[in-house]
């Protein structure tokens, strides 16, 4: 890891945390969605800094798409999408904060206390990565891959079945 990579990692990480935090601190859902998008993009940046080019790009592209969809839904379901009247979208703040902090601290302690092996200095090149991932997909993890595909099919069916309004019965 070069110091530059470390720097990027830190900066993107802090950005992700900042935007992640902003998600729940705005009074407007649109702003929340945009904050989430920014956090995801920062995360993608971290992936890139970690030499995972394919995943980083995928992350940024997917999240962009997803967030735009999310924004639409927000406007559909929010009483006040613009956040003009500063309504409260939260409850049980105190226990939630306690739980959130508690869980964060716990995981942080876990990450710090676990004796990780020394970090690898070099990563495979991007092309090598893509090649090897492809091999992985087509051999060992083929069934997993296919199952993931199946899950997409299931999600489509489930989403459609759930979302569509019933047509009037002809009877």
């Amino acid at each position: 890891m070069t110091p530059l990579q470390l720097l990027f990692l830190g900066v993107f990480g802090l950005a992700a945390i900042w935007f992640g935090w902003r998600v729940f601190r705005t009074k407007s859902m649109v702003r929340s969605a945009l904050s989430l998008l920014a956090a995801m993009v920062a995360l993608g940046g971290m992936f890139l800094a970690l030499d995972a080019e394919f995943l980083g790009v995928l992350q940024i592209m997917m999240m962009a798409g997803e967030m735009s969809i999310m924004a639409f839904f927000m406007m559909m379901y929010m009483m006040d999408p613009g956040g003009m009247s500063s309504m409260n979208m939260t409850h049980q703040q105190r226990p939630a904060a306690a739980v959130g902090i508690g869980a964060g601290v716990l995981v942080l302690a876990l990450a710090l206390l676990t004796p990780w092996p020394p970090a690898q200095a070099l990563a495979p090149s991007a092309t090598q990565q893509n090649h090897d991932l492809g091999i992985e997909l087509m051999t060992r993890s083929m069934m997993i891959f296919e199952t993931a595909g199946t899950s997409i099919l299931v999600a489509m069916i489930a989403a459609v079945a759930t979302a569509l309004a019933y047509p009037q019965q002809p009877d």
Partner: protein
Amino acid sequence: MSSGGMDMKRDLLLVLPQIVLLLTAVGALVAEMLRRRRLGLAWTLGGLGAAGAAALRQLGADTTAFSGTFRVDALSHWSVLILAPAAGLCCLLARQELRGTPREGTVYSLLCFGTLGAALLAGTGDLMFLVLGLLINSLSGFALAAYSKTKAGTEGALKYFIYGTVTTAILIFGLTYWVGITGDTLLTSLARPDLPPLALAFGFVALITGLGYAASIFPFHFWTPDTFEGAPVSVAAYLSVVPKIGVFFALAQVGRSLPANGPVAWPLVLAGLAVASMTFGNLLALLQQNVVRLLAYSTIAQAGYFLLGVVGLPAGAGARRALIVFAAAYAAMNLGAFAVVLSTGKTLADFRGLGTRRVFAGAALTVFLFSLVGIPPLAGFAGKLLLFEATMAAGYTWLAVAAVLNSVLSLAVYLRVVAAMYFGGTGETSDMGPVSWAGQAVVVTCFLVTVLLMFVF
């Protein structure tokens, strides 16, 4: 790198039951598109039967497919052998309950998909199968729970969804630590003795959280009663049986690989959860006036019994047998109970006088409930006997004692229904319309299995 010795044809043949399940689900969807409901039902039943037959043909094998990511062993075979008929019975129940509603065929398809998810969970050899099996199972479950599109239905589904997504997120986050310390996603890599205990423990708790929600283990069970009440009865029956069996078999697969005498005393954790689940479920079931909710709490309690089998795993093969037998028994008695509820009504008052009004239904429900208590010679007893045996063999006698005391408590729960049926006078409410052949077939099948299971294995 792990492609050496891969034989695609062999592997595909090994997962044939799962492939058949997938094809069945897709075929049912096609039938729905063609608006051929009866065809869809027939196709589904046939496909489920075929999946069962495929699993039956392979019975006895103990190997893995796709480089160890999917296990082909007794658990995965029996999961299909139990879940396919159970799903078929759920389809029949759905036929009785939802006949003529829009997109009736989608239900069959989703039931098959959910079963596929449970079957994948049962054979999981890789962490990603845990995630994906759970995902497929949950996604179809969300849609099924929301099927009625009423306020109650969507509320139940909403809770189910929130619980599912949150616990799945915790599960995945925890599993990443396992991946980090083992450097692999295979379950077998957990067997190494030198893994850092903290991360191992964290991953395990996350695993319990994610799987526990689907299996309604305390304290991840909160969605259960509301969702059961809001969903169609046939879907509630499905939710109480199919995901649960898949999840416990998956837990058993993990338990096979995770060393019990390592740093993480996971059987102890599960034992504690088992006691909590049983006690909590039975206590709250005592209060219910709604039989569906009562059965929902009873599934929470029964989840505790399932955990007994997982706790007993380190002691030997007996625990796996116990899990399988109890799963079969549980499927039969629970589905049977829901089937009678479907044709009778949801409140306790609806059951008054059932014993004299419809003699067979009353007798069958009595048998199902006594079986849930674990009274011999019914199927539930066979399962509990083996579970207790496995638990005691593993040295958890106190757990067996707790389970025994809970059985006593559960007796009070179920006898309330029995007493209402036979000694509660005659109810003024009429039944929910004529009982179709489909519902009757379910009751008869479950009755036969519940009564005969102990004499045929």
